[in-house]
């Protein structure tokens, strides 16, 4: 029996964000960092939104952060999420500053709260795409 193809929506890979997804596939959470003002930023783009420099470097982050907001989705807008409801979606504020939207794996929705400490995990959903998710550490 062959495994069913991955039916959930996949991120759109662009020249701006490709290094992010390349990082995930290599098991690293890399974000754009401005070499001029030494700040990480998100979303990816060709210029630092703080100092407007184009000295862009992709740098590894700690992968650690805290939940800055969360929701629990109870309705399946896409059929492929039907078996997952209810499931969480969170925004995580990384230690380096930027906030990313993701899921927390293996967690009871009742313990979700703002400030919960989490770390990155890498979920290879297809041979070409690895998604960033988080697990609770605190």
């Amino acid at each position, binding site marked *: 029996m062959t495994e069913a193809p991955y039916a*959930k*929506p*996949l*991120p*759109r*890979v*662009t020249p*701006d*964000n490709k290094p992010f997804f390349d990082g995930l596939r290599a098991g690293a959470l890399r974000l754009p960092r401005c070499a001029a003002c030494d700040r990480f*930023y*998100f*979303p*990816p783009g060709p210029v630092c*939104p703080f100092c407007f420099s184009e000295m862009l470097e992709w740098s590894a982050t700690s992968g650690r952060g805290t939940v*800055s*907001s*969360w*929701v*629990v*989705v*109870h*309705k399946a*807008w*896409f059929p492929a*999420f039907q078996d*997952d409801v*209810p*499931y969480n*979606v969170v*925004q995580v*504020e990384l230690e380096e500053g*930027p*906030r990313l*939207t*993701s*899921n927390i794996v293996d967690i009871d*929705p009742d313990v979700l*709260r*703002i400030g919960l400490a989490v770390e990155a995990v890498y979920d290879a959903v297809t041979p070409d795409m690895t*998604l960033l*998710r988080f697990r609770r550490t605190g």
Partner: protein
Amino acid sequence: MTELIRNTTAIAGIGLSKFGRGLEESQLELGLVAFKAALDDAGLSRDDVDGLSIHMGWPLGVDYDRITEVFGLDIRYVNQTWLHGRFVTHALQHAALAVAAGMADCVACVTAISFTRLRGILGGPEDDEGTREEGGTHGEAPAYGLTAPASGAALSMQRYMATYGATSEELAEVAITFRRHAALNPRAVMRAPMSVADHQASRMVVDPLRLYDCCLITDGAACVLVTSVERARDLKAKPVTIAGMQGIRSGREEFIFAPRGLGLGQQTVAREPARERDLEVYRSAGIDRDAVDGLYTYDAFSPLVLFTLERFGFAGPGEAAGWIQGGRLGLGGELPMNTSGGLLSEAHVAGWNSIAEMVRQLRGTAGETQIEGASVLQWGTCWGDSFILRN
């Protein structure tokens, strides 16, 4: 220099189709009903319209070029925006700006949408705007299962609740108040009374938002005709003057469905009261905020009402959930809002149903929902754009 636009343009006519769910009529048919009704209201003919401002095009609505072809219009100014609510204010503002600049004499703002026939667009696989890389237009992240337009409002409300101690029971006041207004409005799709218990018993959609925190999904059309204030004075209906306006705010400190400073997306966390630059609509109109007799907003989700009140300083940061209690937003209250029932209970005509209600209020023809002595009304969204109408 926002005074340049002050009292130069007016709404000369409004027209509505019926509102409902599962309507059989095409968007063109609904739009035609609204367009003809607006012309009749103003005492204008089709040939008087030389501009079009389309809030939502294909496939939810109808694109400008199809409308001009089908209705037989000959147009010299067009504006058309994204497929969701964000640009409602913008669509009316561009009509006013075009008239003020002489690029058109009379602009028809037409919104004709069939949400129920196109459900897949609202958070489903056909929602291209929701799948934009690094976040959809409402904060969606489809790869992670966050696809509904409610997503951004839910993420914001969760953090707002945790930050300020607001509760779902307090939020219920929004939906209950607008339902009370809808009960007085025969066009409204949802008119049955709602209690806090009803609100709390409604199913969770995207926690912390319940079904009754989310607007209706309906079909319908509205048309608003904008012309110069001089011309409007000579027309059939009592003109309603566009007194002032301010544009949409955008930047890293803005998240479409959150107040500034809340800490959503890339926002800085700060307790930030309404800033002078968010109050320029009052300077533009030459009035004080205290002169506003009623406030109208894009209530796609109930938290947006709280965030709008804080955006314009009616309530301080984190205070709106408490401030609205006790009927403050109801007819006869301190600041009546969305008096025809809004998107939450009248219909989702992308806000134009509420703009039409503002015009009726200022003409004194709102009937059961009339705000006594209404002379200055504000439209404003939580993302910061606004206009003020007066009679």
